[in-house]
C-alpha cells in the first residue's frame, strides 16, 4: 500500500457492473455489481456471486466509469407519427364501417 498511490480504503475501490447471461441465446442482463481493485479480482468475486450455482453461462464485467449513461429523451419535434401511439383510428374506423354498412372485418 504505497502512500498516495491507488485507493487507500476499500471504500475507494472501483465498482464493476456485472451482466450475466442465463442461457445460450439469451441476452446479457444486468445482475448487480462488485467492488474490486482490478479486473482479476472483479472476475473472482463475480464468479463467486453470480455463477457459483451454474446460474450463468457467461458474465460481462464493466467498470462503472466506462458506462455512458443516456437517460434524456427529448422530443421537441413531436415525432409521434413514428410510433403506434401516434395514431388513433378508432373513431374513423367506426365512421368507415357505418358508411360501408359493415359490422367489422370479415
Amino acid at each position, binding site marked *: 500500500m504505497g502512500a498516495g498511490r491507488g485507493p*487507500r*480504503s*476499500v471504500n475507494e475501490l472501483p465498482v464493476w457492473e456485472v451482466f450475466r447471461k442465463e442461457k445460450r441465446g439469451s441476452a446479457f442482463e444486468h445482475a*448487480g455489481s462488485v467492488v474490486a481493485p482490478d479486473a482479476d*479480482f472483479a472476475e473472482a468475486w463475480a464468479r463467486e456471486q453470480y455463477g457459483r450455482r451454474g*446460474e450463468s453461462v457467461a458474465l460481462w464485467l464493466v467498470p462503472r466509469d466506462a458506462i455512458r449513461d443516456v437517460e434524456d429523451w427529448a422530443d421537441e419535434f413531436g415525432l409521434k407519427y413514428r410510433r403506434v401511439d401516434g395514431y388513433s383510428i378508432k373513431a374513423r374506423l367506426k365512421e368507415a364501417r357505418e358508411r360501408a354498412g359493415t359490422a367489422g372485418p370479415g
Partner: protein
Amino acid sequence: MAAVEIPRDEQAFLEYVQAGGQVETTDWLPDDYRAKLIKFIEMHGNSELMGVLPEREWILRAPTLQRKLALTAKVQDEVGHAQLIYRVVEDLGKPREQCLADLVDGKAKFHNVFHYPTKTWGDVGVIAWLVDAAAIISQKALLKCSYAPYARIMKKICWEESFHILHGRDVILAMVTGTPEQFELVQEAVNRWWGPLMQFHGNPIPPDEDPMYLWRIKSQGNGEARQQFLDGYVPQIWELGLTVPDPKLRKRDDGEWEFSEPDWDELKHVVTGHGPKTEERLALRRRFLEQEQWVRDAVLAA
C-alpha cells in the same frame, strides 16, 4: 418514447412510488427516502451476516458429511447475500466499512432470531426450515421494492433461499421419521423458536403508519406477513404430528389466524442488543474483522 420523469419534490415522489413506480441509484431521491432505505437494507445485510453464526456453530457437529457440506453451502450463500446487500447500501452512500464498524460496535440492528442460541441439531433444522420461511416471506415482499437495485438482487436471494427451506425440511423429516428422541428434539426446538418466530415480522402497526411501507420499500404490512407465515407453515408443522406451543392458535372461518399476542417487550429488548447470544456473536464478528484485516490490506496493495 420519453423517459419517465422521476418527480423532484418529496410529495410527488411519494405518490410516484405509491403508484408502483421504481427508481434507480442515479435518480433524485428524497433525503428521508434515502435514509430509510439505508436503515432498512443495512439491517437486512447485518441479519444475513449475523444469521450465519447460529448455523456455523453446527458445521463441525452436523451428523453426516452430507449435512456438513449442505450447511457450509448455506452459510456461504448467506454471507454472499450480505455482500450483495451491502453493495446496495454502499451505492446509497454508506460505506461497507462503516456498516461493519457500526455492527460490531453494537450501533446497528439485526433480526431478533439471530440473537438466540442453537441448543441442538433440532434447532438447526427449525432455523433452516421455519426461520428461513419467515424470512423468505419478508424477502418476497421486497421483490416489488420501489428501489429497483434492491428489488433485483432480491430475485437472486429468494431463488437461493428456496434451496435452504428444502434443506431445512429434509433435516426435519429425517428427525421426525427417526427415533422418539429425535422427534422430541424437533418438538423442543419448535417450542423454543415459536416465540421469536411470532415476533419476527415485527409490531402489528398498520401499514399506513409504517414508513417502510409508505415509501414502498416493502410491499406489505407486518401483520399481513405474519398471517402469510402462519397460513403457509402451521399446516406443515401439524401434518408431521408436531404441536405449536400456543393454545390460542387457530384458523378462523374467514381465513385469518388467531394467536396469543407475541411478546413485544422481548422483541424490543433482544433487537436492541440484549439477546442471550448478542454479545458473544458480536465479539466473534469483531475478532474476525480484526483477524482478516490483512485480506483487505492485500486487496488494496494489488
